């Protein structure tokens, strides 16, 4: 199976426990206002608009296709700013075998892999194939997801997935639509299902005051999940909104929470029995 890969980070410290290779897939079915890597949202349509923007000549446009030469790229992100479609010319279609080959180089320095995005569950068969390879070589497998794929209907994928890091961007459906453009019924269903199955490794909520009622989301999410903490401990990651990478039209309107606010939310979680709480 093939997936469009935005990038592979050989050693990642922030995508799950220990040292992991993180694979970012291209394409997302949500439109979160605070998305900090909006260039991973859409697939490249080979319009050619970015080609002449590249200051180092790493991009060329021939036969109606964009060609990317990573050896010339200096990661200045000019092409990403030039893209009119919220995409990146630097993504590559790769098979699960090809991605696995790129992961193998990091063995034995990593304990696992994490697939993120974009929204990686847009490629469930690819994930199943990649995770089967990873697990058979002793690596743990984590999915970083917005929760729009109904995991209950994907037993093959779940069987080779050690855990899911799930975004709960708002508990209330209307608020969720305002933040992401989509309803969250499946997201919440997934949260309970994964928690019951012992596959919910982490829940995360991005906090931006005024965008949605973070206190209510955190209390309701914690209330919903606290019965499952005995199945497997669930980490709750509270993420302060940061403007870095965010599209300028939204970055100007979104607020950054204070550390007091974040600590208050952490206390709410502690009161509901969560022990592993991270504020970033």
């Amino acid at each position, binding site marked *: 199976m093939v997936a469009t890969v935005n990038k592979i980070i050989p050693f990642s*410290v*922030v995508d799950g426990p*220990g040292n992991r290779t993180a694979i970012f897939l291209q394409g997302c079915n949500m439109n979160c206002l605070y998305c900090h890597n909006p260039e991973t949202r859409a697939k490249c349509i080979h319009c050619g608009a970015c080609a002449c923007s590249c200051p180092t000549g790493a991009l060329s446009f021939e036969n109606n296709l964009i060609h990317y030469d990573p050896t010339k790229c200096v990661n200045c992100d000019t092409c990403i700013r030039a893209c009119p479609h919220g995409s990146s010319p630097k993504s590559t279609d790769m098979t699960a075998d090809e991605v696995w080959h790129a992961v193998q*180089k990091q063995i034995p320095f990593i304990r696992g892999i994490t697939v993120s995005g974009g929204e990686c569950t847009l490629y469930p068969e690819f994930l199943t194939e990649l995770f089967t390879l990873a697990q058979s070589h002793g690596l743990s497998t984590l999915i970083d997801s917005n929760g729009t794929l109904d995991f209950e209907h994907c037993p093959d994928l779940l069987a080779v997935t050690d855990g899911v890091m799930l975004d709960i961007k708002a508990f209330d459906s209307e608020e969720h639509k305002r933040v992401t453009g989509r309803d969250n019924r499946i997201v919440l269903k997934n949260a309970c299902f994964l928690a019951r199955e012992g596959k919910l490794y982490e829940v995360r909520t991005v906090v931006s005051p005024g965008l949605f009622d973070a206190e209510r989301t955190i209390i309701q999410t914690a209330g919903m999940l606290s019965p499952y903490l005995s199945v497997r401990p669930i980490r709750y990651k509270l993420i302060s909104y940061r403007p870095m990478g965010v599209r300028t039209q939204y970055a100007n309107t979104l607020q950054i929470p204070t550390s007091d606010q974040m600590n208050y939310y952490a206390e709410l979680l502690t009161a509901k029995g969560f022990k592993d709480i991270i504020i970033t």
Partner: protein
Amino acid sequence: MRDISMQRVNETRDKILDIIKSPTLTHEQKVASMANAADSLLEVLDLPEGLDELMNVPLDRKCICDLNEGHAPLRPRYIIPDYAKLIKEGCKFLQLQPPTDLYEALNCLLIFYKHVPSVTNFPVYLGQLDTLLEPFVQEVDDATAKKLLRGFLLHVERTILDSFSHANIGPKPTRAGRLLMEVEAELEHEVPNLTLKYEEGVTDDDFAILAIKTALRAAKPSFANHRMFVQELGEDYVIASCYNGLPLGGGSYTLCRLILGNIAKRAGGIEDFKSNQLPYVMDIMARYMDTRVRFEVEESGFFENNFLAREGFIHRERFTAMFGLVGLAECVNILLEKEGRPGRFGHDEYATKLGESIIKQINDFNEQHQSPYCEVTGGHYLLHAQVGLSDDQNISPGTRIPIGEEPDEMIDHLLVLNHFHKYFPSGTGDIFPIDVTVHQNPEYVLDIVKGSFRKELRYLSFYGKNSDVIRITGYLVKRSEIEKLMKGQNVIHDTTALGMGAVINGKVLERKVR
């Protein structure tokens, strides 16, 4: 003793007067420098022909360096006393009884440290502190133990005025080891250097994670590949000075180093380097080391008269010496340039292979050369990847990739190191400043240590990129102390001056953060 010119005598007298008048040297630093100046007037060693034009020349042409050991070595460079014997039996010369509690044990060690010589005049090894102290900490609660350890470590840092002073812990987790690390994390001291002997499956993860958390604050402990050192040196090995693996109850007579980049400058190309220049310089350095060793053993009287040897804290038969080298990166780059080949050390498979073939050639030479009085290491010296001197310019430590040229990805960096660490039982190591995000995921560092040690890497050090105390090359210095020295103020540790030189000449603050 050979005569010397009156001109040299007068130059040395001027130098001594400069030392006396120095506004930045402390009293202890002046006394040590004056002793070195006096020693430089002696000419007693039987020097090999050709040494002078390889050693006593300007820095950019120097091929052999004896690291300021002096002209008439009065003691071995690195001395590794058996402190367990002290704890068990006391010391006759110092009139110390075996300690009976933690207070007495710490006091006993502090007294003994003041009588352990070395090239720096301070002890380069302070003992396997966890196992030495474990029986004594059992009798006190955590708070009392930590109060006593805090006082002990404060005493060490303010009286052992040189950070080439190394304590060891591990590989097994102990309460004493845990308490020591907790106190070190709190104190953030430059002295002592500290190594955790680590072995996966023996050192448990909790203990290793505590070590990583401590290192992110205090730049110590470093991690030594215990399994590898035991295979090479046996169970009774220690890590001393920078990161030097040496036999317990012995040490190293001497350490000289090849400056590989300058040897490459003499060569027409790779072939000339390997067939002529390198063998010529290695032979002279080995014979120079032989001479130094013989003087120490046969003439200095150290082993007959010093109480450490007389009472059996050290044994002459447990000594060896270290055959050092620096600047492999520059050597490889110069040779590639002379051959008209593209590529740089650290970034190119051909460069890595060339580098490894050079180290292998040095290793083969050393295994052929019969070294006097090195029974403990099979009659041969031990290879050592030396960390550099403060005035080294364009000379990278040992086999390290130059600062500023590290590969973008840490995996590529580690896979280059993997070719070199195995050749250096008496020490090599690499250093990684670590990003603050790791504080929330110290297992990240542990995974890298585990993977590295499975891949035969030998020694790794980490420090938090924003910490005050940082690892310079193989020793610790506080940035705040360097700043004081830069303003012309006195600083307590002699190594701060070395750190300042390394920051200016070696770009130490510009290491790639991982």
